[in-house]
């Protein structure tokens, strides 16, 4: 006969406010097989746990049902308590009286009866529980960092400095990300590239980091500690070992008019190109879509002038397979383009630009060498207007959230403009000023108080072009919505920060969740900002939500420490809630008939074929076998098996049937 202990928790008032806990405990005490039944205010507390431990020891309990919150909250707590008292932790089950009962119903008899029924179900199930042991799997101590912006760079360096290997992949020809495009950063007005490039070089030279640029994730398999990734190294049409980065090819390339992605379309580049002078690695790639050789079969000037013969026109993409223990996603974000805004011209006006384009104008290595000039005619604008919230905080346009960094970079842009164009007049149309970081508020005040930027509280309804000027119609809401019309030379839109183009695809390859805006989802908005719901995959930087540099760096270091923590163990323990194909005595050996439907059904490719041999080595039958290291306990195979030969430990057919019958039968 079983000796089960039932422990009903009040959870303060969370459960006891709607469920009569004392009655539940009393009723359970009368069930067959229940040797001890009690209710208590906080089962998860130390005294509560001690109650369980002493009951196990004194009453010799061989099964425990804790009727409290969701197993997702405290299953580990109670299982650990049982283990400490000498009872196999998998003999402990939880009946969810909180999320499944007290929190979703009103106080009353029916609610208490439901709680009683839930307890009864679990009591009957526990009678069929077996002792199980945790499974141990090895951990591959190599991390994969996807994305080579500041977050990816920081995470790679931090993990590499703990002594573990890192593979960093970046889809552009160089690492650096958006930070390398910036001119100066707030709130210090540091030169962005000056602080970034030392890190970029460190990454390139670090013995523990393997850098693949112009590379993307092809596929991912496996699970925490044991991932298998395929990386697609896109062909650069170059033998990197021979290339010295001399740059002859880029100087001589005859195709010179391709809009430069690094300069946000404001400058031009060649077909064989290095995105920017400080690129890491400083080796060119050939843009096959625009290269004359690949389109028409002619040219090859780069091959002719290359002093080391490094050009390889027929080089193909290479797929590299690696074994990885943990992944950090640091793929960053992008900004909306002006063609998104109908009332601002649908992208027709050359002098209406985005914040990122302004960065390129202000940057010393940009298309205008740091001078603010109009893209249309190259003149220096005497009146410049900055529009905040161009796309963000705009449910009508589908982006209700705040992009966080724009208030700060607008102040920065206005200040840079005033520093470069002393007699110029700058205006900022804003709704609110969000300057919550350290020294951020003081920075914005400097723009207003010291640099004379005109801040107008109100939004702009329309921008149109007339006689080479941009007519900006807005209001000042602090002056009874007085109209403010400005004839500007240039308009900078602080466009919304949004997820990258391929974000959804990447998330699906990685099996991680993402929100409606395609930003990747953190495991818990407050307490787990760098983890995803998929074990072993972590987030860093703006791929999770728009954020500034200090936060991205902090998040990257946070993700790195999670990875290091994972790698500090040689083995990972896994829960034994996995599928098992039965084995019986000869001559049956197993009720499995070898149809292998389960093999194709398993989403994790965790089932193999096993040959059962007799003593002479002859194969008697082929049956299915579950790999305990890969199985995730989803139960799909159990549903497919026609002979009921496969079962999940801890959730066997017997246990499930018993639970259901316990609910249906009058007790």
């Amino acid at each position, binding site marked *: 006969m079983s000796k089960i202990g039932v422990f009903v928790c009040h959870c303060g008032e969370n459960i006891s406010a709607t469920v009569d806990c004392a009655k539940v405990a009393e009723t359970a005490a009368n069930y067959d097989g229940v040797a001890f039944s009690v209710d208590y205010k906080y089962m998860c507390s130390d005294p509560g746990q001690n109650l369980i431990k002493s009951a196990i020891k004194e009453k010799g309990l061989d099964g425990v049902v804790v009727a409290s919150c969701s197993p997702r909250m405290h299953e580990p707590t109670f299982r650990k308590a049982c283990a400490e008292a000498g009872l196999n932790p998998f003999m402990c089950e939880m009946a969810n009286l909180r999320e499944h009962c007290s929190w979703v119903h009103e106080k009353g008899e029916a609610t208490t009866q439901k709680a009683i029924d839930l307890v009864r179900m679990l009591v009957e199930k526990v009678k069929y529980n077996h002792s199980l042991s945790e499974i141990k799997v090895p951990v591959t101590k190599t991390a994969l960092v996807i994305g080579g912006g500041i977050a990816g760079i920081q995470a790679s360096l931090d993990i590499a400095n703990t002594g573990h290997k890192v593979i960093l992949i970046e889809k552009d020809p160089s690492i650096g990300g958006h930070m390398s495009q910036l001119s100066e950063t707030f709130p210090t007005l540091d030169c962005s590239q000056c602080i970034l490039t030392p890190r970029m070089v460190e990454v390139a030279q670090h013995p523990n980091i393997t850098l693949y640029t112009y590379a993307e994730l092809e596929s991912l398999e496996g699970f925490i500690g044991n991932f298998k990734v395929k990386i697609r190294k896109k062909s650069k049409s170059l033998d990197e070992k021979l290339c010295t980065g001399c740059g002859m090819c880029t100087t001589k390339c005859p195709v010179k008019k391709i809009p430069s992605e690094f300069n946000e379309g404001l400058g031009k580049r060649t077909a064989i190109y290095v995105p920017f002078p400080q690129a890491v690695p400083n080796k060119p790639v050939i843009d096959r879509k625009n290269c004359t050789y690949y389109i028409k079969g002619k040219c090859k000037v780069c091959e002719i002038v290359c002093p080391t013969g490094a050009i390889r026109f027929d080089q193909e993409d290479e797929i590299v397979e690696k074994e990885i223990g943990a992944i950090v996603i640091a793929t960053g974000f992008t900004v909306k383009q002006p063609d998104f805004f*109908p*009332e601002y011209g*649908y992208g*027709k006006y050359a002098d209406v630009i985005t914040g990122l384009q302004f960065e390129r104008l202000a940057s010393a290595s940009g298309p205008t060498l740091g001078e603010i000039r109009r893209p249309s005619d190259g003149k220096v604008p005497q009146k410049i207007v900055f529009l905040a919230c161009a796309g963000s905080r705009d449910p009508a346009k589908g982006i209700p959230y705040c992009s966080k960094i724009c208030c700060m970079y607008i102040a920065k842009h206005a200040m840079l403009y005033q520093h470069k164009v002393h007699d110029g007049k700058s205006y900022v149309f804003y709704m609110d000023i969000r300057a919550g970081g350290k020294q951020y508020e003081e920075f914005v005040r400097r723009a207003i108080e010291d640099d004379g930027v005109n801040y107008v509280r109100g939004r702009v309804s*329309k921008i149109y*072009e*007339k006689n080479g000027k941009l*007519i900006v119609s807005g209001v000042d809401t602090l002056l009874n919505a007085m109209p403010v019309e400005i004839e500007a030379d240039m308009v900078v839109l602080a466009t919304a920060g949004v997820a990258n183009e391929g974000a959804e695809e990447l998330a699906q390859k990685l099996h991680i969740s993402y929100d409606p805006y395609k930003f990747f989802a953190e495991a818990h908005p407050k307490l787990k900002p760098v983890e995803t719901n998929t074990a072993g995959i972590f987030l860093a930087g703006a791929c999770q939500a728009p954020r500034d540099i200090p936060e991205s760096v902090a998040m990257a270091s946070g993700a790195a420490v999670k990875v290091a923590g994972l790698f500090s163990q040689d083995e990972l323990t896994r829960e034994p809630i996995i599928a098992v194909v039965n084995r019986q005595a000869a001559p049956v050996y197993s009720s499995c008939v070898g149809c292998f439907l389960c093999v194709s059904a398993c989403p994790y490719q965790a089932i193999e074929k096993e040959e059962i041999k007799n003593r002479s080595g002859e194969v008697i039958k082929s049956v299915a076998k579950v790999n305990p290291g890969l199985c995730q306990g989803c139960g799909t195979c159990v549903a497919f098996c026609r002979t009921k030969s496969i079962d999940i430990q801890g959730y066997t057919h017997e246990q499930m049937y018993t639970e259901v019958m316990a609910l249906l039968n009058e007790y």
Partner: protein
Amino acid sequence: MTLGFYPGCSLKGSSREYAESVLAVAKAFDIHLEEIKDWNCCGATAAHNMNKELSLALPARILSLAEKQGLTEIIVPCAACYSRLTVTKHELSENPSLKNVVTDANGLAYTGSVSVLNIVQFLDKYIVPNLEGKVVKPFDHKVACYYGCLLVRPHEILKFDREEDPQTLDVLMLKAGATPIDWAFKTECCGAGLSVSRTKSVGRLSGKIIGDAHDRGAEAIIVACPMCHSNLDMRRDDINSYLGEKIEIPVLYITQAIGLAIGLDRKLLGLQRHFVKVTV
């Protein structure tokens, strides 16, 4: 073929040339426009400004009459009437209790089965497919296509063209051989119903429209609404006094421009009725 036709009050009176040009163009393409029998005024701006129920009951009566007459599609050249009829259809389909109140006031059955087409939708559907071969005198001028407010807003209800920088009239004029210009006042209000009660405001608003078109070299302004036409044409003196100069750009209805392009007689199209001489 036969289509239902709701002229509205302006087309019978102060914008008679619009009706003339619509009928002339339809006839040239063998389309018979059957007027809804005993139609009433849709209530226009006055009704929705003063009384919500009235503003829905009057258009509902028109739609009920069209239904009774067996019409499935009605052409509504006046943008204001088009707006009121479409909004009424929308409101009554979204709100069954409102529908009951309105049909009670009307005393007529209403199912909402009649399709309401504005002049551009009519031209696109029934004229454009056969237009190319018939253009004998391409309208070879720079034109500013003026849409006004009620053809394109609110987009969620009208679902026609786009609210900013609409293109349907421009495309039509291209087909008629014109050069539509890109300009900034395509959908800015002309002053609408304030024509009589606040003429100075109309002078200012319509003045801005004419001013911008003039600055960009337009030789004609194309409209699809009798109210807009009236403000831009009849009130030209007030516009000129706002702008401080005499601007002589004529204002044509889209059907007049198309009519000219297919070689119809100027008198047939009512061009002599305008206040600003039509020189194109």
